[in-house]
């Protein structure tokens, strides 16, 4: 009989990891769902977020500066990356895959040359390192869940109620109608890239203390990110969230049975989803 505390711990771990998958993958989901661009380079924002928080922890001794810096830097870089990736609009998926993968490799080597090849240790903020009674785990792991939920809800509210959010939503639904209203679709695409990149950067920053930033973390997370998108439904905000949580829990529970089962079970779920509902759980045909 498995200890109830173990189940709670594994559930918390699974939800935390799943929410991080979802947060990181959201931008990718929207660009892939709408523009059919498989932007492998998107994961570099996740890695950059982790390394920025590592750097501020060392230089300024402050974790929160790193989170804010990750958000701002990745937002700006997201906007700039759109200027490069716009040349891929309308190109074949294979072409975009090759180009963005090349950017990912370049980015990985830039990370190696700036930060070195070693794993980095990032401590969570001191105020969150107290242990939860009974569970015996650091509160930071629960904090990640809370903050990811807040960020996700904020994104949904932003998309629904802000003008820019509505522009993005309209663009995702039908960009021709958007043009008919006299709104340049590029406004939406730039905002989409910037928002998605900022969220990925924050995801990386939050994940860094639970993980160990290293140069290949971006490429290692690609399969999980795509699994999240495909399971949840490309282009669906809620679908990406659901996909992330399901896969995160599967990763966690199977890992408890045998750690090597985690990737097997995760991608088995992806496989089954593709067989039963290829458009994803909340995706549309």
């Amino acid at each position, binding site marked *: 009989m498995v200890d109830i505390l173990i189940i709670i*711990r*594994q559930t918390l771990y699974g939800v935390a990891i799943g929410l991080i998958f979802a947060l990181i993958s959201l931008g990718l989901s929207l660009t892939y769902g709408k523009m059919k661009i498989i932007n492998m380079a998107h994961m570099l924002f996740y890695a950059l977020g982790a390394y920025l928080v590592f750097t501020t922890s060392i230089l300024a001794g402050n974790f929160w500066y790193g989170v804010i810096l990750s958000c701002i830097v990745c937002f700006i870089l997201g906007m700039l990356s759109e200027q490069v990736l716009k040349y891929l609009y309308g190109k074949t998926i294979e072409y975009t895959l090759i180009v963005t993968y090349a950017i990912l490799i370049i980015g990985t080597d830039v990370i190696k040359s700036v930060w070195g090849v*070693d*794993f980095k*240790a990032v401590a969570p903020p001191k105020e969150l390192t107290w242990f939860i009674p009974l569970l015996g785990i650091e509160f930071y792991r629960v904090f990640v869940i809370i903050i990811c939920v807040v960020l996700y809800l904020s994104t949904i509210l932003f998309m629904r109620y802000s003008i820019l959010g509505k522009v993005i939503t309209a663009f995702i639904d039908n960009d021709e109608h958007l043009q008919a209203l006299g709104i340049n679709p590029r406004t939406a695409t730039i905002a989409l890239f910037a928002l998605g990149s900022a969220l990925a950067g924050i995801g990386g920053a939050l994940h860094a203390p639970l993980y160990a930033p*290293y140069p290949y973390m971006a490429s290692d997370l690609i399969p999980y990110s795509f699994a999240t998108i495909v399971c949840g439904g490309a282009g669906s905000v809620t679908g990406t969230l659901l996909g992330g949580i399901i896969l995160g829990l599967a990763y966690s529970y199977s890992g408890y049975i045998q750690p090597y089962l985690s990737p097997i079970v995760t991608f088995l779920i992806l496989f089954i989803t593709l067989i039963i509902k290829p458009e994803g759980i909340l995706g549309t045909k």
Partner: protein
Amino acid sequence: MAIKLSMKIIIGVVIVVIVIVGFVMYYLQFVQKGPQLPSQFKLGAVLDYTGVFAACAKAEEIGIKLAIDEINAKGGLFGRIPIVLVTRDGESKPEVQLRRFRELVEVERVHFAMGTCHAGGAYSLMKESIKVGIPFWPSPVMAWQAFNKTERAPWTFTAWPPTWSVGYAMCAFAVKELGAKNVYFFARTDAWGWGIRDGCKAALEKYGGVMVGYDEFTLGTPDYTPYITRMIAAKPDIVVSTTFGGDQVTFLKQARELGLYGVTKVMVFTSHLVMKGIPPEALKGVYAVVFFYHDIPQGLVDSETYRLMREFTEKVISSTGEPPDPYTFVNYVEVKVLARALEKLGKIENIKPEEFEKAVLELGSIPTPKGEMRFNEAGLPIYKYGFFLGIGKGPEERTYAYDYLKIVSVIGGEEILPPLSLLGYR
């Protein structure tokens, strides 16, 4: 006619005299002195300056250079042949290490080679050394199987005890010193982890411990949460982890965050290089087994060994600003030993594996900064003080930057080496 004949005789005698004088002069100039030794001894080293083992390469280089400087300060080998270090970057990849080794042999014409940071790579170079005819000594900890009689190159020795010894020491400490009989073993999925496991099993068998849990992880795992959760559920007396380098930093950090320290003891094999990167909170209370440590308490070792260790530590600190890592110590010792062996052999070229092996074994007891050491017939080192057990200090306990551990115990002698029967020598 008679005059022409006498001229011919005179010319013939002059030629003969010149030839004889020439032979005598050649004999006096060259033959009596014996074959000429080269003007310098080229020591090649394949060090992984780039890639995941970059930090280790730096530590190894410090040890090698320190030893070379000391030998050259006395004139070099035989008092007159300076040692010149020629290095190549192995890039932390075995296939590159092999190519660089061949470069050192074929292009640089080194007389002896050392390296790398990777046991698998070092094993390949050891095998290659026989083909190319240049002695090779490994710089990293080697898998114990590499010293099997059928595997080991006769001229290869190492100043590092093998992985088997690391595991033996860890589990012997766990049971004997800490009373932790139920061991959860966390093995890396390669010769490093399995070798340590084999030694651990031998120690548990001898001292009455039991392996109650076993998990394997791959090198470079960034998230140990699933493993740590299983360890917590198993509630062993101790977790013996074979994580090293960046893996160890990550593992200990996550172990602390997940509350493993509150459930069980944790033991790792570590070094200064690794402990530099471990947050003090994550090292606090962890049982650390080390091969060399810069701050051993007086009384734990004999006074002469204590003096030697302090002297070596001061030497390295004054040259690098940091205390010596075990990689520095080992490579320092290896260069010093090979120099003595070559001087005993009387030559530095055209060395046969068996004659070099004989010369090293005949050195007998060798002074090192960790006390006397001698090699057994399998090429493995026997130290009186093999491994030390320390307890990690938290941030509030540290009195200086490198004050990582409180050393409490030591183990050594032939006990900690794999039996010769296991290695095919009996």
